[in-house]
């Protein structure tokens, strides 16, 4: 199972804070995004935006990252702390 966490405006669009997805093996970040767009059409327009960062297990992830069963993925809109 992969846990996906949504923050700030993405939480509003997804109408959820957390979603869980069952996977049969490791998948690429691109594949996860595909699943998310199907499951949550409201995210389709923003998921590929360069301003949305992705974390895997609370570390920033590269575009070609691979996600394994048990991983926690964060979808992070532009930060505005400070």
């Amino acid at each position, binding site marked *: 199972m992969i846990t996906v*966490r949504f*923050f*700030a*405006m993405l939480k*509003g669009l997804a109408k959820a804070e957390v979603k869980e997805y069952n996977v049969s093996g490791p998948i690429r970040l691109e594949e996860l995004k595909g699943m998310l767009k199907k499951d949550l059409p409201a995210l389709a327009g923003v998921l590929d935006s360069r*301003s949305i960062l992705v*974390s895997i297990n*609370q*570390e920033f992830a590269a575009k070609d990252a691979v996600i394994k069963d048990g991983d926690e993925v*964060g979808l*992070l*809109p*532009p*930060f*505005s*702390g*400070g």
Partner: protein
Amino acid sequence: MRAKTAEGLVKIQEKPFSIEEAVTKVKAASKGIGAVVTFLGTARDFSKGSVITGLDFEHYPGMAEKKLKDIRERALKNFDIIEMAIVHRTGRIEIGEDIVLIAAASAHRNDAFMACEWAITELKRTTPIWKRETTKSGEVWVSETP
């Protein structure tokens, strides 16, 4: 002279923080400290043409704390400072209230100024914290880092 761990020096909390307490903590690291520079971010009533009536901050629990600790460690490594404290509030923050505090302590003032300014810029760039502004026309997530 530098503390190995960030015990009590890096915090994310809902309740207001004390500037005096943070300064006392960094000063406790060494009697060689001659300068403490602090940056305090406060909630102002105006932003990009809109009157703001309040703010809400959300963070990624765990990751945000990790990123702040990482900023402190990199500051200690890359600048000639002796200690650094960082505290950021979350939840509802009213106009005029404090949001974030960074305190950098060094022997000589230039190092503390540089490290403090670097740390707040790095915080805005790398820490998963988000601000929602309440204006007369509703609530808006702020989507850029000034």
